[in-house]
């Protein structure tokens, strides 16, 4: 006698087989090419990052055209500060050489960001002045040259 196979089982097995195979085929089609090359991620996404444009050109780029300021700055305490720390992103300006593409910081607050009295600021890291006392009413750059702070303008 033939063994009895309940009719539900082959039918359900078929249904599940169809669904699972469909899933596998879809999965095959949908997985991105470079997925899993180095690990469980899309390796190509690292290349996506290389295409992002930079905004900060780096100090060396500025020196190409602003040799004078490089020399000025090198002589004094601000020598460790890169141009773009004060002037903002300069990649665009470096290629265009337009004044409009770069910031020219002004104001007491600007210098104050680094020089204002603050208990958290280490005294030996940066000298601080009390903005409410130190030569009030005047812009810092009227006396200090930003590129060479101790070379006072008279």
């Amino acid at each position: 006698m033939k063994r009895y196979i309940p009719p539900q089982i082959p039918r359900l097995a078929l249904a599940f087989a169809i669904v699972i195979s469909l899933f596998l085929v879809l999965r095959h089609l949908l997985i991105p090419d470079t997925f899993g090359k180095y690990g469980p991620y899309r390796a190509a996404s690292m290349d996506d990052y290389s295409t992002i444009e930079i905004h900060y050109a780096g100090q060396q780029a500025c020196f190409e055209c602003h040799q004078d300021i490089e020399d000025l700055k090198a002589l004094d305490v601000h020598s460790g500060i890169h141009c773009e720390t004060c002037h903002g992103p300069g990649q665009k300006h470096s290629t265009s050489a337009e004044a409009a593409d770069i910031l020219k910081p002004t104001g007491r607050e600007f210098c104050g960001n680094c020089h204002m009295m603050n208990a958290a600021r280490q005294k030996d890291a940066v000298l601080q002045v009390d903005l409410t006392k130190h030569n009030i009413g005047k812009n810092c750059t009227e006396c200090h040259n930003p590129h060479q702070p101790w070379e006072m303008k008279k």
Partner: protein
Amino acid sequence: MSQSASTMGNEKIGSSRRKFLKSAVTLAGATIGYTWLKSSQILIFAAEPKDETLPWYGIAIDIEKCIGCGSCAKACKNENDVPKEPFFFRNWVEQYTVKNDGTVDIVSPNGGIDGFVQRVPDEDIFKSFFLPKMCNHCAKSPCEQVCPVGATFLSPEGVVLVDEKYCIGCRYCVQACPYGCRFIHPVKKVANKCTLCYHRLKKNLAPACMEVCPTGARMYGNLRDKQGPLVKFLKEHTTQVLRPNLNTGAKLYYNALSSEAR
């Protein structure tokens, strides 16, 4: 009744039809078998053996040198097109003020971009310090662990990156980061975080925050290079990571970190 009817139907299938069915089944089976083989290596992936020739990046921040100017936070936003609103930061600076009565006052107005104004009068202060924050690029990063689709990953150079074309925006990684370093980019609608300026690293440029730091309080480097400046710095200073208890394998080392720091 119905049972016999269906068996009868089976018998009627002609031999040509059966042949066709057979070949169709083999074909489908082969395709499925192949797809399965090809994709299973992703299902059960083995961590790629580390490529020793690549750098393994780490970061060091010297709190003693930080003057809290916020240049790093500002430059980060400019460099990486992060919205200027004060809710999205890849990089920010906090000021901790421990008062004489033991309470700790922490502030980070606009991430420190606009500078800090001392809130507590000198005579009440026990100590005060700045604490620059950014992604720790953890080697056992909790955010990478929880990403359900592999859109966040630890690159072979040890940089935690987000695949912006693959992220589904479930925000699980934001929840998992103990340092609060992740956010959902309000325009791109995907997770966003510090990439150690991966695009700059590839061009041999320093990350924007390191480029603009006026005091050299931040440095990055290759932890594999035992003669390199970063390893030298770690050797010469007593450094600590944030939340060491969570065992995240953080690779951002702070010099002179106070116990109040979170």
